[in-house]
């Protein structure tokens, strides 16, 4: 009898998130698919431009694989750095390297432009130093620009996901192996690597999916010569209203991304060793050998140059403007806080003007709602499918579907499915947290689930035997052990929501804009003030994001401190 109830409980835990998925993913997709079918021309098959399709598909796979590899090349050593060493400024660096993830593409483009654009800081410097007539660095409309931007965006995923797992790894295992005579390399290959594999696979999957469906970066930084499936879907939908072709492209995008995700997952992500994760990061140590110190310094420098400098370029640009001649000679430096101050003036008396504080408030409300929702659903699913073989992989793939789906197509689906129901537009923005949750959920799952699976059943059984209630087991055993994973998921679902532009742009009511929407509105018109205000607004998002991450990390730190104090009190 009792086990029946337990079974029903488990099923409910899985069913609720699936219902969410059905309402907010499958229903909209079904709606847009049926609209497409209704609009089918009888002989539409004749005009399918297979050339365009195969070019776009080929380039999409090519740039996604290349971007992912490069991101791992930078991300894995960086994760090792954060997961192994203690050093001064570590927390700050960790926060700064997470921020790129939230930035809307328009802002990233502006940030790169401020740093390495034709009149960016670096080119101005070189042109001044060497008396050059032409900018030294010209990356506009190149594959390099796409790759750099993808690495800039996604390295933080690898750092957080893999670095977090590394930090919590039980150091005794590695030590034991070394004591038994295994070389450093052998220990790494046979002990550390297999233990880390699930987190590496998670990071790889997420990075790959983000790169595969990337839109803004390709459009704004890659330029017209590079067309991915998502860009082609946008053109076919918006420019030509060719829904059947857009449908084929969307299907291909979904198929390829899920097929590759499936292969990656099969390749080793499912092996999770039941080893108690260490809360207090015993593995962390200060760098001692010269080699370690050099590695640390080099790695930190690379991270700062690639991930922090563009942010700095952006920040500088928001209160410093430079006048130059065409030859790149600086004629004047102007320092001003006017852009920040003028953010509060409604110069056009526009009905849609909202003070930036309100845009910020909207952003924070949506971000809190969607991260709580994503964590709840992620928890339920992870608990529900624990230990159920086969089924768990299907669920994992289902959860990943929204990440592989074309945002343009899903956007139209949302519109077809919900615009009728939301007859009064007042309630339309309530869909925003749902849309953000769809994007954040795969993240939460890929982080929380391995953490939960790694807790050995014996630990919980022991607690139960000693008389702990299920709630106590959850609170005192499970929660502390997965706290880091929970914080990481919170940080990502929060920042995903803060930076999200695509879905928000058509779900937000004009008087309830989020920060990215407000930035876009400024950049929509010519004029020095609009540009400056957009930069100032971007810096505000940066600051808010940094502060939120800082506070979330504090939460984890405080909890660990409390536990330690309590521990002392008991002894």
């Amino acid at each position, binding site marked *: 009898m009792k086990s029946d109830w337990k079974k029903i409980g488990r099923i409910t835990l899985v069913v609720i998130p699936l219902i969410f998925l059905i309402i907010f993913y499958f229903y909209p997709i079904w709606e847009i698919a049926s609209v497409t079918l209704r609009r089918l021309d009888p002989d539409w098959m004749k005009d399918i431009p297979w050339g365009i399709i195969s070019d776009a598909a080929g380039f999409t796979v090519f740039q996604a694989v290349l971007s992912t590899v490069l991101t791992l090349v930078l991300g894995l050593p960086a994760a090792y750095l954060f997961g192994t060493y203690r050093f001064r400024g570590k927390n700050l660096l960790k926060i700064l390297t997470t921020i790129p993830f939230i930035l809307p593409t328009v802002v990233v483009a502006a940030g790169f432009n401020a740093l390495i654009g034709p009149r960016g800081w670096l080119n101005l410097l070189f042109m001044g130093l060497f008396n050059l007539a032409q900018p030294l660095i010209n990356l506009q*409309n190149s594959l390099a620009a796409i790759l750099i931007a993808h690495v800039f965006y996604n390295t933080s995923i690898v750092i957080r996901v893999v670095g977090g797992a590394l930090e919590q790894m039980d150091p005794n295992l590695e030590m034991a192996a070394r004591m038994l005579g295994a070389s450093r390399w052998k220990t790494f290959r046979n002990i550390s690597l297999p233990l880390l594999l699930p987190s590496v696979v998670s990071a790889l999957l997420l990075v790959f999916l983000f790169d595969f469906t990337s839109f803004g970066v390709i459009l704004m930084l890659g330029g017209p010569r590079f067309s991915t499936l998502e860009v082609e879907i946008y053109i076919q939908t918006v420019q030509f209203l060719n829904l059947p072709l857009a449908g084929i492209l969307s299907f291909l995008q979904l198929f390829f991304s899920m097929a590759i995700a499936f292969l990656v997952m099969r390749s080793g992500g499912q092996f999770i060793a039941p080893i108690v994760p260490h809360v207090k990061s015993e593995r962390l140590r200060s760098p001692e050998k010269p080699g370690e110190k050099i590695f640390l310094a080099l790695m930190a420098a690379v991270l700062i140059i690639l991930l922090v400098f563009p942010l700095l370029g952006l920040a500088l640009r928001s209160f410093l403007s430079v006048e130059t001649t065409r030859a790149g000679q600086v004629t004047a430096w102007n320092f001003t806080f006017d852009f920040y101050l003028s953010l509060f003036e409604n110069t056009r008396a526009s*009905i849609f003007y909202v003070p930036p504080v309100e845009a910020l408030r909207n952003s924070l409300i949506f971000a809190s709602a969607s991260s709580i929702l994503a964590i709840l659903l992620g928890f339920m699913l992870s608990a529900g499918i624990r230990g159920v073989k086969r089924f768990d992989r299907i669920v994992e793939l289902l959860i990943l579907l929204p990440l592989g789906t074309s945002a343009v197509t899903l956007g139209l689906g949302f519109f077809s499915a919900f615009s009728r129901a939301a007859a009064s537009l007042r309630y339309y923005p309530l869909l925003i947290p749902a849309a953000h949750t769809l994007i954040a959920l795969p993240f939460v799952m890929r982080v929380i689930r391995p953490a939960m699976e790694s807790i050995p059943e014996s630990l919980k059984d022991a607690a139960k035997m000693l008389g702990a209630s299920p709630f106590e087991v959850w609170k005192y055993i499970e929660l502390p052990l997965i706290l880091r994973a929970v914080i990481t998921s919170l940080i990502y679902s929060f920042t995903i929501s803060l930076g999200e532009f695509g879905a928000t742009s058509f779900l937000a009511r004009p008087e309830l804009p989020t920060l990215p929407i407000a930035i876009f509105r400024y950049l929509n018109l010519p*004029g020095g003030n609009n540009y400056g205000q957009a930069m100032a607004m971007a810096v505000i998002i940066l600051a808010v994001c940094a502060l939120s991450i800082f506070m979330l990390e504090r939460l984890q730190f405080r909890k660990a401190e409390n536990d330690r104090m309590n521990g002392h009190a008991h002894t």
Partner: protein
Amino acid sequence: MNKKMRTISFGILFALLAASCAAEPQTLTVMTHDSFAVSEDVVAQFEEEHGITVEFLLSGDAGSTLNRAILSKDHPVADVLYGVDNTFLSRAIEEGVYESYNSPVLENISDRFKIAPDNLALPVDYGDVCINYDKAYFSGNDLDLPQSLEELTDPVYEGLLVVENPATSSPGLAFMLATIAEFGSDGYLDFWQDLRDNGVVVVNDWETAYYTNFSGSSGQGPQPMVVSYGTSPAAEVVFAEEELEEAPTASLVGENMCYRQTEFVGILAGTANRGMAENFVDFMLSETFQEDIPLNMFVFPVNENAKLPDEFEEHIQVPENPASLPLDEIREKREEWIEGWREVMLG
């Protein structure tokens, strides 16, 4: 705890669903693109006069907005659709999203704007897509301004122009249509080939072209000529960092160098609010609304009685002979033209 979690998430789901089902009377919904802007007191005036609330449904760029109107035409989500321009108008009419309306205010509007059959869509505003140039660059280098599209292929202008991809950008499409008006359907690609050989820079979106590439904007890029709007010089003055006497940029307005875009408003077919929708369309064409348009959206009002702000009188060059093409021709050949352009420019 699981139970608690369940209750909470059920609660959230129900709140979302219940909220999205509730209905609200006495509102007029206007579907439009996200560049739409209007002064608060102007809308308030209409709302007071008619005792109604006006809700604006911003639905992405102009193309996306029209697509949403088309996809929802069987169950319209709004009463009025504003912002379809003459490059998209033929699609809107063909798909039957509008109901015709012979507004009495139409008499104050010149016939050249009324191009929709049966007044299915009514003109509201117009603007020209023109090449903006950086005044300082041209005077500093003693360079003459190009007087025609053809002259842009002259080697003295090598690498000096940035344009947008017509497949992804509305000004990019308008400028390509200007070249078709000038060189014809079979000649425009030769011109573009010459332009390409002369080092024209192509980007996907207006923001990048204007802020990253154009030397006359605050981005201070490398190209002194950009495809933008005829009104951009006025916006540079209105939104200047420091007060400016003179615009830093100006438009090239030679024959067929600019393409005129007209934006339309129409009543969505099947609206339950026809009377109020008519009132709103009349209002959009009235002097009050029309005089509010320029400084909010940086386009010209079509109503001849509407007075223009000083910035528009002083800093904008208006082309005498802007290019235009018949609606039917655009509808038939749009895809072919864009694909041809992509092959020449990106192949």
